[in-house]
């Protein structure tokens, strides 16, 4: 069973993780997520009980390693079809807000 525990995560850490995740969060969110993430992290910490000395990690289960094909030109999607879902576009390009400088 899961034990009640104090959150391992502070609202400041939540703010940092949210920034890395590129997600805006409010003050209210910070407190809520600190509690929830704390409980989740407490739960996944259960893995520290397992002795994994000398065990190799499994990143994938399918019996495939590298998949190669001939580098031959083929038809791709028409640009207008790909741009059809763009929130904003201009002259065949995606239009974005300012990236550098003020």
């Amino acid at each position, binding site marked *: 069973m899961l034990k009640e525990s104090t959150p391992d995560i502070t609202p400041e850490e939540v703010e940092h993780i949210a920034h890395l995740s590129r997600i805006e969060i409010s003050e209210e969110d910070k407190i809520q997520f600190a509690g929830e993430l704390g409980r989740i992290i407490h739960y996944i910490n259960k893995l520290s009980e397992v002795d994994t000395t000398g065990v*190799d*990690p499994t990143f994938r289960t399918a019996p495939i390693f590298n998949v190669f094909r001939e580098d031959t030109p083929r038809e791709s999607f028409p640009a207008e079809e790909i741009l059809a879902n763009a929130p904003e576009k201009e002259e065949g390009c995606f239009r974005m807000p300012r990236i550098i400088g003020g």
Partner: protein
Amino acid sequence: MSLLELTAYEAGEKLKSREISSKELTGAYLDRIEQIDGTIRAYLKVLPEKAMEMAEAADKKLASGENITPLTGIPIALKDLICTKGITTTCGSAMLAGFVPPYNATVYENLESAGAVLLGKTNMDEFAMGSSTENSAFFPTTNPWDTTRVPGGSSGGSAAVIAAKEALLSLGSDTGGSIRQPAAFCGITGLKPTYGSVSRYGLIAFASSLDQIGPMARDAKDTALIFDIISGHDPKDSTSVSYEKPVYGEIVKNPQIKGLKIGYPVNFFGEGLDPGINECLQNAKATLESLGAEFVEVELSTIGYALPAYYIIAPSEASSNLARYDGSRYGLRVEGCSDIVEMYKKSRRKGFGKEVIRRIMTGTYALSSGYYDAYYLKAQKVRTLIKQDFEKAFEKCDVIFTPTTPAPAFKIGEKTDDPISMYLSDIYTVSVNLAGLPGISAPCGFPDNLPAGMQLIGKAFDEATLLKTAAAYQTVTDFHKKMPK
């Protein structure tokens, strides 16, 4: 007999003999959807005109007798994370509310060329993150057996359409139990195939080393028919595997399991398992024994660590996969931002629901500087131990028998405030994804008038034995024939 009573196999026979037409059959399903989906709310989008056009084309094929498959003219539904060209594909998220894919998923291409008829796209937990379909950004789906309860998730819509006779076959996806758990909750049959056996091209990604598309149907026989069409190597998915494929539809025709060795992991049947479900499973065990199968005890001691390992690996992969939803090229964008980072942050906060944000943040935390070894790498090592546990068990048996879920379908709203108690409903299913194995859930009883599911886990690429075992069980039981009112 009403057209809706026919299984896909039976309907296929009648279509071939031209006793019924696909237009009649499709019409009957569209009427049923019209009549009941206001209550079940399993569909995010119904496609009446397209379905009737596809039915007409199928009838022409059936009349000409050319290019006929067992699915020609059969009405199906797809979970709304399988891309359909020109048809909105939302992944249950506000982020993709208006997204129209420019291409088809390979599984849909295969179904279309097999002559199947697409009725619509089904509801799901946002980005397949959830176990109840309550995390859909649009509305929750109800369980056809009791509309105050959840259908399970994340493929809740694809399970409910089968139980409520709103489609003959459907596809779901399973990352930690998302086909098998809703199949159990809705009293239907659901197969999570071996990782690599079904193309993921055009499947909106959640956790790429675990995700797998699979079929949901009324019984194992129908499941085999659609698995025949969707399985096999696809050059467009570099993780799809080329393997020797039997004809699954033939394997389930006269299923014999005499001498089959079935592994029984004793620790799966202890604390935490609902007594009513356990009773159904013990009866199922006796039934399988009466068919000539032999049960042997096996040990899967790492089961207790599968869920925490999953809740590191899946969110880590998700935090990377979902980075693409940034308001730039498609999906929701919050306008009026002064710079690009503000646009990313505002668009992602507005486009994603709470559970998706929790998982992205959990994954980001697990992968962040200083934590990688303790969480992500550790979880991948535990994954190796889980895989080895199965390998050892399969030295003694052909399939493994377990519950699908610890309890029957829960009430809507019961677990929404407690993410971890929601996560626990996948306790018996996640280890199968971590090991990349196939698993099937089939109905095995009705404690308190709600469906219970048994799970059979197989060796990699041995779906044939799973389908055969479930089909043999279904020749002597009728739980799969029970339908809600």
